[in-house]
């Protein structure tokens, strides 16, 4: 559908929230917690904070949580009965306050979970989720969405995008049918189109490099000391992957407790030293530079080649969270500056 534009008074925002809640949807929104700002199920508008550049963790967990129960099983005498994941129990969710970068992360993630067979649990969850984006007025030194094809007001991935105007009111862009459905819930709050221009109300994020160039360099410099140089200080924890909106690696485990048990899917990370270890004991990525190369390679070369989507949307979460300041933007700039081959 073509994008429809409305004005939503800042005053009506909370009322809009209430309407959505009243419709029975689960609303997840950024909440100020003890140490972080993260998406949490909320009941009242005042639980929500808007004081964040991006949340510590991405919005991906709405469809790809850190622990996912795939099915349960029960043993009786010598028989085993399996109870599949009850797809129909998945609630309608509204992700409120998603940043454009996060929203942009949805499509690569979806591409991964659907590239051969559909991952029904993931896709169903995604289908039942409405993303209400809020474009960025603030950014920090870690942001580089503009370098990977996004921008602080990008609509891609959001169903509705809210942009705060100088008046304090919001420009609401209805982007999809799902978004439309929200508007239908409370048409009274969606007023006539604002005169004011959207762009000048957005954060300024300078372009640092050309991501198309990165792909080319990554392919050209597969064998290169740059990976060693960049990975030296990396301590191979999984933080970057766990906060990343597009990282999709997982580990399947069976949790057995006597007669009952379940199969679960857990987040995993290609940075862990044991990630690719073979039964034989051989590990194709046994040193950190190999794992770092894989990470960049996967996001900027393998994904575009295989599923025609880039694995980095420039939110900068990994740079903020990294315990040893592996700043991905800095590294990407470094890569982009490598001589053409």
């Amino acid at each position, binding site marked *: 559908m073509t994008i429809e534009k409305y004005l939503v008074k800042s005053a009506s925002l909370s009322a809009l929230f209430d309407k959505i809640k009243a419709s029975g949807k689960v609303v997840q929104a950024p909440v100020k917690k003890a140490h972080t700002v993260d998406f949490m199920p909320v009941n009242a508008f005042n639980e929500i904070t808007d004081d964040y550049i991006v949340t510590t963790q991405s919005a991906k967990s709405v469809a790809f949580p850190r622990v996912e129960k795939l099915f349960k099983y029960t*043993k009786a*005498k*010598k028989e085993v009965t399996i109870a599949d994941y009850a797809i129909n129990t998945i609630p309608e969710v509204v992700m409120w306050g998603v940043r454009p970068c996060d929203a942009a992360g949805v499509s690569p993630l979806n591409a991964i979970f659907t590239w051969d067979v559909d991952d029904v649990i993931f896709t169903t969850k995604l289908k039942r989720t409405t993303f209400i984006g809020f474009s960025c007025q603030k950014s920090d030194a870690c942001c580089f969405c503009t370098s990977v094809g996004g921008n602080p007001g990008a609509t891609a991935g959001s169903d509705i995008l809210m942009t705060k105007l100088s008046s304090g009111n919001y420009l609401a862009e209805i982007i999809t049918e799902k978004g439309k459905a929200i508007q239908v819930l409370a048409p009274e709050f969606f007023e006539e189109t604002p005169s004011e221009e959207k762009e000048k109300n957005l954060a300024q994020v300078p372009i640092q490099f050309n991501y198309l160039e990165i792909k080319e360099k990554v392919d050209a410099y597969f064998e290169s000391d740059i990976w060693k140089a960049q990975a030296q200080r990396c301590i191979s924890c999984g933080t970057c992957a766990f906060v990343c909106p597009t990282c999709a690696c997982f580990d399947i485990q069976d949790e*057995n*407790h*006597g*007669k*009952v048990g379940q199969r679960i899917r857990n987040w995993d990370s290609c940075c862990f030293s044991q990630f690719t270890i073979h039964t*034989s*004991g*051989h*590990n194709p990525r*046994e040193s950190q530079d190999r794992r770092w190369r894989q990470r960049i390679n996967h996001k900027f070369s393998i994904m575009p080649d295989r599923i025609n989507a880039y694995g980095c949307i420039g939110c900068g979460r990994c740079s903020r969270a990294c315990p040893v300041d592996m700043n991905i933007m800095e590294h990407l700039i470094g890569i982009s500056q490598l001589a053409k081959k």
Partner: protein
Amino acid sequence: MSRIGVFVCHCGENISATVDVEKVAQVAGEMGDVAFSLDYKYMCSEPGQALVQQAIKDHNLTGVVVSACSPRMHEPTFRKASADAGLNPYMCEMANIREHCSWVHERSEETTEKAIDLVRMMVEKVKYDKPLEPIKVPITKTALVIGGGIAGIQTSLDIANCGHKVILVEKEPSIGGHMAQLSETFPTLDCSQCILSPRMVEVAQHPNITLMTYSELESLEGYIGNFTAKIRKKAKSVDHSKCTGCGDCWNKCPSKKIPSEFNAGLENRTAIYTPFPQAVPNKPVIDKANCTYYKTGKCKICEKFCKAGAIEYDLEDEIVEIPVGALVITTGFQVKGTDFFPEYGYGQYKDVITGLQFERLASASGPTLGEIRRPSDGKVPEKIVFIACAGSRDEAKGIPYCSKICCMYTAKHAMLYQHKVHTGKSYVFYMDIRSGGKNYEEFVRRAIEEDKVNYVRGRVSTVYEKNGKLIVKGADTLMGGQPVEIEADMVVLATASVSRCGSEDLAQKLHISYDAYKFFAEAHPKLKPVETNTAGIFLAGACQAPKDIPESVSMASGAAVKVAGLFSKDEMSREPIIAVVNRMAPPQFSSCVGCFLCQTACPYNAIEREEIKDRNGNVLKTLAKVNPGLCQGCGTCVAFCRTKSIDIQGFTNEQMYSEVMALLNA
């Protein structure tokens, strides 16, 4: 996937009375991986074992769970049965539904449920059992016997006569123990010394026996077949290789006022001394604590008079390390002193003495040359009272058990008194007369009927002195508890036999257990009376419980046979329940990171360093390695290892983990 057989035992009524064994077998049959299950009246019986073996063959079982008594009881039985049927013995486990279930609970749903849980637990364990091969270790064919009393003497001679080396350690200057102190022995009244001394001499002269008197065990390390004993040879201050035992030294020694241990304090000895004339070895030692020279630095009279020049004051304690394959503990007992009894005058009345002191009075080699005379004034007692059960069978005194020998030796004492003092009157106060044993009852009757000893059934409430007499107040329960008062010249207390002081320390040095009264504990009250819980260490004599001579001697021979049996092979196989460090493919080699914290944790120094090298000899990794000869399988390292790289066979992490899972997830 394993195929497990579960065999539920009724143990006659012992289990089936409170546990629904049929149900246990039926539910077990429904457990995962259980291919076969049955219940049977006596699983350990010949046909019972046959059932297990048949099932192993018919259902080609990969594991067996026998749900019966404690594994400490029958694990070996069923492991052997399984092995004979072609199953690796370590694939057989026992679920203890008797000691830990049927015997401690009433019949109820819960009891049966618990039995089922215990079976499920062991089924899970068996799943993770791995076939193991016993570890072969060489045997040092030398036995260490600790204690040179009659038990130690007998066991040493028996072992030595089987052709094995024996080291007999005695802490006193001479062997002989209590038996050497006795006058005559019941029920035959033959002279103790006369039958003992030949044995003592035989020990001293036996080519296979090394006698170490005046010595004590310092420490013991190692395990069955391969112990290392450290023995402290206390400085004798006399070079026995030179000493002729002429006796000049002790005749000349000026410090003569030392109570003689051998004569139970009824006579004094000198500082340089042999305990008694027939001592073996019959050569003196200097009792440093009481020697003038050692106390003041002056004297040296013995040195002056020693023609052989054998006195060496500056000899020091020597600690020798001896490899031995087995030990027999024969440290014996001791008797309570009269001072233990406030009601009998706290030991302040000279003429209230212990049975052991009476033995010395009655002994021809004793202070009175065998005449019964009062310690106080040397008068021959006209009236003498013997009090049996002095301390024994008395909760209040903390000695609820029966000292066993008192009834007999009291009868003997009374008899000897009557034989020596024909005009004398003797009384015996007793609770019950316990005279089980060949010719024992007849012996007591002789005392009563022929020697006219007056037996009074009742306890003595008090004894006190009144103008030279000992007033003994008691009651005669056979006369309706009417008070009895006797003016005696002498009172003999059959004081309780108790464990030797220091037996606790010794037990800890040996890592054997002991009972509430500090007597050493046998491995099984009926079927393993001479074994301890520590393989290779055996018991004989009164260190296990009060015993008379024939019992001690037979137990000693029993222990000797156990040792000889062990020594009949050149090597023995040990349970392969030991720790192992995991190994995996390069470049990891093992998950062990070589922090070697396990090394400090291991009580046996069994953890060694193993270097993994490449072809050029460069060390790629250093990891921990367990020496299977030294590891005893305690598993302390296992619980301690952060990376879970070390595990213990038979009690692996997977097994303990799944046992807990199984117990809690019915």
